[in-house]
C-alpha cells in the first residue's frame, strides 16, 4: 500500500481526514470542546470536495440534519462531546430503528454535565451502548492513537454504510487533541464501502432477508421512513409477528457480523498470566507499562486493545480468561467496561479494575504497580 509523506496530525484532524477519505460529504454539528476541531476541519475541507458543512442551531439539530442528509444519499458524520452526545441520543435511536447510516463522533470529556471542561475521561462507554431509549444494537469503536483515529473513522463510515446503522466513534480528549507523526494511506488506496442500487423495481428498503443500501430520496422510489416500527416498505405496523421479526433482524444484522465488526489488537506474551484489557488513550499507558513488565522484567504479560467496544469482544475475553490468572481493566471512569470483562471471564480469571477519575490519564506507573502486585 502506498502512503503519504509522514505528517504531524492531531487526533481530531485525523478523524476529518479519515472521514473524507471514506467518502463523507456531509457534516452538521454544533461547537463543543474538545471536538470542535473536527467541525472546523470539515468547514474548511468539505467545500473543496463538493461536500456540505453546516453549523446547526443546536446538537439535536446537528444529529437530525445528518440523518436527513443520509436520506438524501450523502455519507454523513457529526461530532460532539459529552453534553452534546446526551442531546443527540433520541435521534441516534431514530437512525437505529430507521436504519439510516451515519457516524457520531464523541470526543469524551469529564462528566456528568459540564464536569471538568475539558479534562479527559472515558465515561460514555455505557452511554454509547445504552444511551438511547429502547433496545437496539450499536457499533462503537475507540481509537488509541492518531493513526487509529484515522483508520477507525474510515471503518466507522464503512460499517455505517454496510450495516445501515449509526456507528459511534468514541474518542477521548487525549487522543482527540494530541498531535503525532502519521503516514496516511495515499488517497484511493482505501477500502471504501460502495453503494449499488440494483433491483430498484423490487426495492424493499427494509427487506427481511437482505440489507439493501438505502436508495436516496429523489431517485423515483417511493417508500416511507419512520421511527415507528415498520414493515419491509417502511410503513408502520404493530402486528406482533412483524414487530418480533423486525427487532430480531435489527439485532441480527450486527450480531451475525461480529467477526467482521470486532477489531482488537493483541500485544505481549502468548501464554500470559496477566492481561491488560483496555481501550482509547488508556491503551497508551498500558503499552508503556507492558514494555516495562514484559520487555524489561520478562514477565508473562499481555495487552488487549479493544478497538471495537460494541459489540463487545466477548470471545476474545473468554479465551483470555481461560489462559490468564488476572485480567486488569484500566479505564478513566469508576468502572464501565470492567463489568463486561467480568461477565465473560465468568470467574475463570480474577478481574481487577484500575480506575482514575480526577480528570487526568491513568499513568503507566499505576498500571505497572498492579501488574507487579499480580506477580508478588
Amino acid at each position: 500500500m502506498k502512503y503519504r509523506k509522514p505528517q504531524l496530525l492531531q487526533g481530531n484532524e485525523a478523524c476529518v481526514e479519515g472521514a473524507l477519505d471514506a467518502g463523507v460529504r456531509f457534516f452538521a454539528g454544533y461547537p463543543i470542546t474538545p471536538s470542535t476541531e473536527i467541525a472546523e476541519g470539515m468547514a474548511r475541507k468539505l467545500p473543496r470536495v463538493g461536500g456540505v458543512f453546516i453549523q446547526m442551531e443546536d446538537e439535536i439539530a446537528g444529529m437530525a440534519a445528518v440523518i436527513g442528509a443520509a436520506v438524501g444519499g450523502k455519507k454523513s458524520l457529526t461530532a460532539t462531546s459529552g453534553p452534546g452526545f446526551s442531546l443527540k441520543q433520541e435521534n441516534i435511536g431514530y437512525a437505529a430503528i430507521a436504519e439510516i447510516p451515519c457516524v457520531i463522533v464523541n470526543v469524551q470529556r469529564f462528566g456528568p454535565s459540564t464536569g471538568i471542561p475539558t479534562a479527559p475521561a472515558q465515561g460514555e462507554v455505557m452511554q454509547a451502548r445504552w444511551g438511547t431509549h429502547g433496545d437496539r444494537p450499536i457499533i462503537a469503536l475507540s481509537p488509541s492513537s492518531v493513526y487509529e483515529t484515522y483508520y477507525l473513522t474510515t471503518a466507522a463510515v464503512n460499517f455505517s454504510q454496510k450495516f445501515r446503522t449509526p456507528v459511534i466513534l468514541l474518542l477521548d480528549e487525549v487522543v482527540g487533541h494530541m498531535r503525532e507523526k502519521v503516514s496516511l494511506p495515499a488517497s484511493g488506496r482505501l477500502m471504501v464501502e460502495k453503494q449499488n442500487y440494483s433491483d430498484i423495481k423490487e426495492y424493499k428498503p427494509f427487506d427481511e432477508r437482505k440489507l439493501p443500501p438505502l436508495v436516496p430520496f429523489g431517485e423515483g422510489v417511493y417508500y416511507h421512513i419512520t421511527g415507528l416500527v415498520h414493515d419491509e416498505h417502511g410503513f408502520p405496523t404493530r402486528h406482533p409477528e412483524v414487530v418480533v421479526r423486525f427487532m430480531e433482524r435489527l439485532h441480527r444484522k450486527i450480531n451475525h457480523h461480529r467477526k467482521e465488526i470486532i477489531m482488537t489488537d493483541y500485544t505481549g506474551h502468548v501464554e500470559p498470566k496477566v492481561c491488560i484489557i483496555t481501550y482509547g488513550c488508556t491503551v497508551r499507558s498500558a503499552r508503556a507499562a507492558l514494555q516495562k513488565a514484559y520487555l524489561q522484567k520478562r514477565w508473562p504479560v499481555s495487552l488487549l486493545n479493544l478497538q471495537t467496544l460494541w459489540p463487545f469482544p466477548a470471545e476474545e475475553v473468554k479465551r483470555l480468561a481461560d489462559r490468564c490468572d488476572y485480567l486488569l481493566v484500566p479505564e478513566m471512569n469508576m468502572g464501565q467496561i470492567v463489568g463486561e470483562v467480568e461477565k465473560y471471564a465468568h470467574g475463570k480469571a480474577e478481574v481487577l479494575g484500575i480506575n482514575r477519575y480526577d480528570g487526568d490519564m491513568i499513568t503507566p506507573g499505576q498500571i505497572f504497580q498492579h501488574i507487579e502486585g499480580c506477580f508478588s
Partner: protein
Amino acid sequence: MKSLREEFLRTNKLPHIWCPGCGNGIVTAALVRAIGKVGFEQKDVAVVSGIGCSSRAAGYLNFNTLHTTHGRALAFATGLKLAQPGLKVFVVMGDGDATAIGGNHFIHAARRNIDLNAIIINNHIYGMTGGQHSPLTPEGKKATTAPEGTLEREFNILELAVSAGATYGARGTAAQPRLLEKLIVGASQNEGFSVVEAMSTCPVSYGRRNRLGSAVDMLKDIKQRSVSVEKLETKAETTRPRRDIAEEGAEEEGETHDKQEEVIPVGVIFSRPAPEFVERYYRGLNKEKEGKEGKEEKEGQVES
C-alpha cells in the same frame, strides 16, 4: 372541486388514523392538490414530518416521505435539502411540534431562508397525547394541563416567522380549502423559507373541552372570523397579533373582550423575497472549486 391526484396518495394505507371532524385530512388534501397544481414531478417531492396527529400525513402521501422525531422535522429537512437540492421539500408539522419542542429549528430555518415549505397545522392543542395546551393555545382556553384555562399567551407564528427571516408567510384555514391550496402553491413558488399556517379543528381534544360545539360548528366559526388580509385596513393589522386587533375593536365599541370574536387574517401575510440559503451554498462551492483547482495542497504528496 378539483380532483385529488390519486397517484400522490397511498390509497392502500387509507383509511387514515384521524378522528371524525379533524381538519388534518382537509389540509393534506389541499397540499396534494397544490403539489399537482404547481406541477412538481412526483419523484422530486419530499414530505418531512415530525410527531403528532398531523405528522402522520407523510405516511399517506406517495412521495419521498420521512416521518421524523418530535419537533425536529425542519432540522432533518435542512440536511435533506442540502444533500439533495433538487428536492421540493414540504415539512408538515403540528402547532406543538413546530413551535414548542421545534421552536428553535423553526426560527433558525427562517433565519437561513432555506427553501423549505413549512405547513403548520394549527389546531391549538396537542391532539395525539389527548389535549394538552400548546404555544398556540389561545390564552384562557382550556386543556388537560390547563383545566382552568391557560395563563400563557400564544405565539403569532407568522409574526415570529417574519421577524426570524422567513420570506413567505400565509394563513389559511381548514374551512377554506381552496384558499389554502392557493397559499401552499404560493409557498412552493417562493424560493426560500415559506410558512403556511393552516388553522384547523380538533373537536375531540380542543373543541369539546372548550364548548366549541361540533366539528361543523368549529369550521363555521373559523370561516366567520376569517378576514382576507386585503380587506384589513393597514399592513400592521395583518402582522400584529390577532388579539390586539380584536381588542382595539372591542375598546372602541366599549365591549368586553370575547375571544370568539377574534379576527383571523387569512391570505398572504407577507412575501419578501431574499437570497436562498442552499442556492447560495452551492454557488459558493463552485467558486471555491474553481479557485482551488491547480493549487493542490502539499499534503497530497505520495511516497512509497
